[in-house]
């Protein structure tokens, strides 16, 4: 009882001592803090090194999202690639947790250090694919999902992906 009372008094003292310490506040917007490249801000969709959309519409970001603010629909392009017919993020719900980036198997969805996205109209916080898709590769420069994956697309036949042998000749009986 007395001990806990002392502890409370010590707490009061400690807090009181902070009267003489400097404030840690960075005075944004006059002062801009350094934000690391992996800071979690506005979400973008990136392109692979060949300039094609990275997103394959696998839906993993959508299911990882704790506030369910990502919706998309898959489509298949003529060259065999999967792509999102639409890709929508409701930033008025987004909590910038980065789960989508973590879930993304193709490094398509990435969070950027831009967090300044205030709007007077909430509807303007709904970003469609044309708002999200950027021209670069973002943080991961070399990854190209289709060079690793076994799916055949135009320009990459079966057996041409990373570590793949040429297709088996089914009619051969050689050992």
């Amino acid at each position, binding site marked *: 009882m007395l001990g806990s009372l002392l502890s*409370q008094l010590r*707490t009061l003292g400690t807090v009181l001592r*902070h009267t003489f310490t400097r404030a840690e506040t960075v005075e944004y917007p006059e002062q801009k803090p350094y934000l690391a490249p992996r800071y979690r801000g506005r979400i973008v969709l990136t392109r692979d090194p060949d300039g094609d959309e990275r997103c394959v519409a696998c839906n993993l970001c959508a299911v990882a999202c704790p506030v369910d603010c990502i919706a998309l629909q898959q489509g298949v392009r003529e060259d065999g690639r999967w792509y999102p017919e639409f890709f929508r993020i409701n930033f008025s719900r987004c909590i910038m947790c980065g789960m989508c980036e973590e879930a993304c198997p193709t490094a398509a969805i990435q969070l950027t250090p831009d967090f300044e996205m205030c709007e007077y109209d909430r509807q303007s916080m709904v970003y469609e694919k044309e708002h999200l898709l950027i021209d670069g590769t973002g943080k991961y420069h070399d990854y190209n999902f289709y060079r690793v994956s076994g799916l055949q697309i135009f320009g990459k036949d079966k057996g041409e992906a990373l570590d793949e042998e040429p297709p088996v000749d089914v009619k051969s009986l050689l050992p």
Partner: protein
Amino acid sequence: MSETSTLVFGLILLLGAVGVAAGLTWFERRLLGIWQDRYGPNRLGPLGALQVLADMLKLLTKDDWVPPFADRVVFVFAPTAIVIAMLLGFAVVPFSPDMHLLDMNIGLLFFLGMTSLAVYSVLLGGLASNNKYALLGGLRSAAQMISYEVFMGLSLMGVVMLAGSFSLQDIVRAQEGMWFCVHQFLGLYVFLIAGIAESHRLPFDLPEAEHELTAGFHTEYGGMKFAMFMLGEYLGLILISCMMTALFFGGWLGPDFLPPLAWFLLKTGIIILFFILLRAAIPRPRYDQLMSLGWKVMLPLTLVNLAATGAVALWMEG
């Protein structure tokens, strides 16, 4: 004092109390900022002092909304009750030997009565909101305030015994030799804790408890009605500080190089600072801890204090 001067003084007191309460919101946020190594409001006016004005404007211009499911009359009445009760409490505060609105012979009881009235505000606000969080907040506040009122009243009885009067001016004068905070230390301690609980400020803001109850009894409140709850809370804080000054720290007594009023305000200010420090440092207890602290520790302490004081007083008279 003449009738006119009483009226003028009353008006000054009224505006002063409300003004200081409003100013306190800024003052408190700045202080908390300092103690938590940040700035607090610093954008509007010098040191951000005009923040109060901005907040006031914002609150004033907000939609005056009553939820459709609430009990309309009670819902609107509830926040006014706390402001009225707290302001009335100021009537008996002895600012200096001749500055007081009323010097009743039951001044202390009047103060206790007024603080007790404040519970209605919180309770009715919680009930009338017709919202589960508000109801829980209201319930908690009723239990908390009724419990702590018991020790608050009892803790002061030692002071009354020593002073031999319920009049606050008499009590202040009775401390000319030694402030009651010395021989009524236990009373002071209980009164301090009960005072925080009565004004349900942190760390005893369980009726509000934003982590559990959203915003407790005032979940459904907004705009000026919400502002009145806040005003009432800050008025309560000032009132408790004034009373503590008067009852335990010798009120306006002090060396002559400062006028009595200045002494009074200085002491009150330091106590307010202390309350803010408490808020900055101490975490909120659980509800059951609060109740058991009250009934299992505070009540016995008060009774011991009362018995001892009574015995000593009898022996002194003896």
